[in-house]
């Protein structure tokens, strides 16, 4: 045990140094800002669950059943997220960390290293899920008047589910390291995790939860109640956790300690199994992962499609595209985005707008207008993930740009265009596809397409400019820069930008909707309103493009004065 503690010690020291710090400027503000944001999010989850459960509680008869169904879905979702997160963490901690070479040179048994790293991975992959699931269980406890034993079982179940998820992932990763080509280890396991997550999203979506609040879609009331009461698979640890918690509530069925015992035995078995596999398999797997074998050979191409560019812009464009797509850590994220976009569009297809007798077309236009803002928010988060870290992604290789005979604006402009085109295309596809499903009016379609065309360049420029202003060339994972203070400022400014655009357009759009509803022709007054709405939006979009870009250019240039 002492050896494991010693192996975890460097991590504890660095955590202590980060917390106590050395008075680096902005650290206090950052901690305060992040803590505030986390607390707000925590409170929001609590309010949402509290309100939903209060509503369920008031529904006589099957309100409790709905609430418990939701609880079982929460457990299942958490478990899948925990497995995905621990898969990614374990691959990095067991096989890819830079310090492993040093650790294996120490007189310590590999299985001890495995245990120490496994504990770190279990903590890293679960603390956030556990922290943000507490308001969910707190709201259940309050609404269903759970006693101390409920909270105890809830907390312990979460911790043991996290340990169980890490155990499952550890077995997968240990075997994968022995069986897979070493160079593909990271890609394949990350893929597995993401596929699991995509499966979760799609399966939850295809369950059509909207039908649960629409009993008419079931033939009989009994069929409906049966559908709701279907308990999870008896062999799933989430079912044991759910059953234990349900039994711990006042009036719950069965003995909580029996179900909790099942969960405990699952974690114990997994812990033993992974340790048993790790003893002979971990170090050989690690050693194998060091030898990547013959690396792949790439065919030389003339990249004729980039014929319209020459010199430095061409060099930067080709470099950007090649390095992006060859970075295998980007692929799972692209799959995830594709799945989320599919679910997003599918949601519009199942919206029960046709059954609403009130002003069918007008309601669809209004939903489409709201969707405009929603699509922009999707774009903001995508730009946070891909555009904001784009300059930091240069890493230590940024000296090449500094030493090259090019202007910083040329470099930033190429990055801007590289990210603008696919994001603009995606955003237009999102709004056009959803508008076609909603069968909106021509005016709404034109408004959506035009607005997206104006705001996406602004969002991309904000992400790129603010990312360039605060780059982190030392980070091992540039995507993490999106969670920095700069990333949060970008998110806030972009959200403000989109909100102002939606507010500015709302007046004009409302007038046109009403005219369409009454069957009136558009008059000079309508056109005046529309011009008055659109001109400020266009002006604001230009400001959102120009200023962040200039700011990023200036700050990136100033960086050369200091480092």
């Amino acid at each position: 045990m002492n050896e494991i503690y010693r192996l975890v010690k460097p991590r504890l020291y660095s955590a202590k140094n980060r917390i106590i710090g050395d008075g680096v400027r902005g650290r206090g503000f950052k901690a305060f800002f992040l803590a505030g944001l986390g607390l707000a999010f925590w409170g929001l989850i609590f309010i949402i669950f509290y309100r939903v459960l209060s509503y369920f509680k008031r529904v006589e008869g099957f309100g409790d059943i709905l609430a418990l169904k939701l609880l079982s879905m929460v457990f299942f979702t958490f478990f899948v997220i925990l497995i995905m997160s621990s898969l990614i963490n374990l691959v990095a901690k067991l096989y890819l960390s830079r310090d492993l070479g040093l650790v294996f040179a120490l007189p310590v048994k590999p299985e001890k290293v495995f245990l120490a790293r496994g504990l770190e991975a279990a903590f890293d992959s679960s603390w956030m899920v556990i922290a943000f699931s507490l308001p969910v269980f707190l709201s259940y406890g309050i609404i269903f008047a759970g006693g101390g034993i409920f909270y105890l079982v809830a907390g312990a179940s979460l911790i043991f589910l996290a340990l169980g998820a890490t155990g499952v992932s550890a077995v997968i990763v240990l075997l994968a390291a022995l069986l897979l080509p070493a160079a593909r280890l990271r890609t394949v396991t990350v893929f597995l995790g993401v596929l699991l997550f995509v499966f979760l999203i799609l399966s939850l979506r295809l369950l059509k939860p909207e039908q649960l609040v629409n009993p008419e879609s079931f033939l009989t009331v009994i069929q409906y109640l049966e559908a709701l009461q279907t308990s999870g698979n008896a062999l799933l640890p989430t079912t044991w956790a759910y059953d234990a918690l349900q039994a711990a509530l006042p009036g719950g069925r069965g003995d909580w300690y029996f179900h909790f015992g099942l969960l405990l035995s699952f974690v114990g078995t997994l812990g033993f199994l992974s340790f048993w596999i790790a003893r002979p398999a971990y170090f050989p797997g690690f050693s194998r992962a060091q030898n990547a074998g013959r690396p792949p050979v790439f065919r030389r191409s003339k990249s004729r499609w980039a014929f319209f560019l020459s010199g430095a812009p061409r060099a930067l464009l080709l470099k950007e595209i090649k390095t992006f797509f060859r970075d295998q850590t980007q692929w799972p994220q692209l799959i995830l985005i594709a799945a989320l976009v599919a679910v997003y569009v599918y949601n519009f297809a199942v919206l029960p707008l046709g059954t609403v007798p009130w002003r069918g077309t007008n309601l669809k236009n209004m939903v489409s207008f709201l969707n405009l803002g929603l699509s922009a928010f999707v774009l903001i988060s995508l730009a946070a993930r891909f555009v904001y870290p784009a300059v930091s992604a240069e890493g230590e290789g940024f000296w090449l740009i500094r030493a090259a005979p090019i202007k910083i604006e040329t470099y930033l402009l190429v990055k801007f265009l590289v990210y603008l085109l696919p994001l603009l295309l995606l955003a237009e596809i999102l709004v056009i596809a959803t508008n076609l499903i909603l069968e909106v009016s021509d005016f709404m379609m034109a408004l959506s397409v035009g607005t997206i065309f104006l705001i996406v360049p602004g969002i991309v420029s904000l992400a790129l400019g603010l990312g360039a202003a605060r780059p982190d060339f030392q980070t091992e994972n540039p995507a993490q820069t999106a969670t920095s203070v700069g990333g949060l400022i970008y998110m806030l400014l972009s959200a403000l930008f989109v909100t102002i655009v939606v507010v500015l357009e709302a007046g004009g759009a409302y007038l046109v909707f009403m005219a369409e509803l009454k069957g009136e022709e558009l008059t000079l007054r309508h056109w005046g309103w529309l011009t008055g709405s659109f001109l400020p939006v266009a002006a604001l979009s230009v400001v959102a493009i120009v200023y962040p870009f200039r700011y990023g250019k200036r700050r990136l240039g100033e960086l050369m004065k200091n480092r």
Partner: protein
Amino acid sequence: MIELKDLTKRYDGFIAVKNLNLRVSGGEIFGFLGPNGAGKTTTIKMIAGVLIPSSGSITICGLDLASQAEEAKRRIGYIPDRPFLYEKLTGYEFLQFTADLYGTGKGGQDGIEVLLEMFSLAAWADELIESYSHGMKQRLIIAAALLHDPEVIVVDEPMVGLDPAGIKKVKGLFKQKAREGTAVFMSTHTLDLVEDICDRIGVIHKGELIALGTAGELREKTNVPGGRLEEIFLHLTDRQGS
């Protein structure tokens, strides 16, 4: 070719380089020596145009590096001490990228093949740089720095990670480039290398140039007749206090 006038670099109350005045002519190999933290890499970075001086000026081939940065940088081949590259490009693609960046045109294309052969990288040219060893990356950086046939080569610790054959090749190459009129500004801790190929030597200590001249002139100045460069260096830096 390279002219430094009152070059100074300050960081938050600390002076890394102080009033450095120096001139390196075409065809000359200049060795820049100094203990760790003396200001060598800071000076090299300023000459390469990757760090902006606090005051003073740098002129490259008659071009002011501050006001004519792009034109001046086009004439520089910079080899940093650590080979950080775009790991997801192949060696060939990286040289192609450099050729496009420096606008070498058709000559650059032919040059890529020649340099790949010269630095024994042709067999790995189509593999990702991430699979290269430290020495291979260092050779690739040197190849990239020479691709646009620069008039000035600025190099920080050129031999780190190179095998003996690589060291011999690079030494020969610098001598050949100097014969063709290129100015080579080289910072290193390898004193044998300096004795072997450098025409003049500058010693920097605590940000100040404390000695300048040929190896012979430095021997005379330090009163270490017949001494090796190592003794001269230690004599100079010890005298100044470390």
